[in-house]
């Protein structure tokens, strides 16, 4: 009876050990399969990211070369961001070669890769550009015979605006200050032309109220620089191209890197079989 019991226990023990070995083998097999799947997903993601970032880099280069936008970021204790460009009151005059180059690049990509789909026709002339992480928006708008640049910060957490207006061949007749409301925010306007005019208007203002500097041109046209409701606006009806340089200075240093982003989705990289879609926006700096 004792022998029988021992045999029974031996059989049961062996069976249990075998079941455990078998379970471990299945479990090991499953985890290896899962690791393989994950490695596959990582590989595909890398490939999509590579493809997307190469398209993004190409578009960035085209925009940097042909948009005429010159963006600079100065980093000291505080951050200064300046955006310089030639502005024309005729919308169609702006960015002709930029459109051509973007179209050529898009056409080339479509012959090389069916997974990349462009969702917009071209770069939007009215932008906006977003200065991150400060949530400051830089945009343009055109109306008949006039163009406006706008800088809209979400909060006034910087020291001031410094605007350089170079009217080039348009001679400046006078710079006047029709309205000013004193405060602690710096508002500096420099007006220069190719005839030696160099006038600086520097004031401490309240950016919530209306503050204006007018650069009057010979012949009656104007460049109006306005700070109102915490927003900056540069407006002109000059028939000639003028150069505007807007510096947002004294931004606080934050943990995140400063980036200038064109936030509109320009293209998608899609692998339908794998259900992967990567949306492409463009970071200019």
């Amino acid at each position, binding site marked *: 009876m004792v022998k029988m019991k021992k045999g029974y226990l031996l059989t049961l023990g*062996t069976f249990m050990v075998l079941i455990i070995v078998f379970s471990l083998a299945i479990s090991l097999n499953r985890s290896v399969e899962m690791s393989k799947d994950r490695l596959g997903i990582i590989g595909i993601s890398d490939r999509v990211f590579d493809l997307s970032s190469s398209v993004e880099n190409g578009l960035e280069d085209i925009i940097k070369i042909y948009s005429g936008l010159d963006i600079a970021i100065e980093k000291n204790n505080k951050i200064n961001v300046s955006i310089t460009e030639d502005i024309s009151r005729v919308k169609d005059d702006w960015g002709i070669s930029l459109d051509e180059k973007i179209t050529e690049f898009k056409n080339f990509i479509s012959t090389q890769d069916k997974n990349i789909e462009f969702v917009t026709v071209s770069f939007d002339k009215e932008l906006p550009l977003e200065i991150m992480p400060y949530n400051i928006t830089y945009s343009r708008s055109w109306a008949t015979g006039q163009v406006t640049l706008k800088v809209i910060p979400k909060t006034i957490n910087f020291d001031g605006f410094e605007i350089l207006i170079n009217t080039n061949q348009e001679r400046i007749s006078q710079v006047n200050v029709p309205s000013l409301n004193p405060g602690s925010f710096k508002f500096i306007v420099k007006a220069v032309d190719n005839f030696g005019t160099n006038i600086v208007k520097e004031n401490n203002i309240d950016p919530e109220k209306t503050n204006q500097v007018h650069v009057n041109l010979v012949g009656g046209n104007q460049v109006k620089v306005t700070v109102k409701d915490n927003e900056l606006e540069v407006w002109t009806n000059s028939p000639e191209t003028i150069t505007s340089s807007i510096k947002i200075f004294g931004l606080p240093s934050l943990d995140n890197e400063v980036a200038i982003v064109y936030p509109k989705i320009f293209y998608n990289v899609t692998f339908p079989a794998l259900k992967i879609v990567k949306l492409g926006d463009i970071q200019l700096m």
Partner: protein
Amino acid sequence: MKKRSWNLVYGNKGFAFILDSALAVLLVILLLTASNIYIFKNTKDVSSNPQLSKTGSDIVTLLDNTKELDTLNKNSIEASMSDLIPENYGYRFNISWQKSGEQEIKSLEIGDIIPEDRFVATGKKFFLVTNNDETNITDYGSTKYSIWLK
């Protein structure tokens, strides 16, 4: 006279024991074989595959950043590759490009024949060719790369 084998009351214990043992051993062998198959089915190490893809991507990025791709010259790119790629790696690049303002797409291929018996990492990158002072884009290009361990 010998008894019949199936005349079971308390006899034929040996037969039952052998049958029982054989079944038990068979079960043990089956379970061990199945476990063995499960354990050794996936022993092939694939963890280096993403690394291989990254190596290919890094090499193309390096060629692009050093303006080597801008040469669009087979010998020049091949010479750079021999400096960049370790000896135990095989590669094949298919470079296509189109001149700005033109329709014709040109291409060149460099490297070895792609093997069929091992993992080959592939990828694609687009690049732009600019003039020396980077004020004008002259060509639009793409590089399809394949890379493997020899």
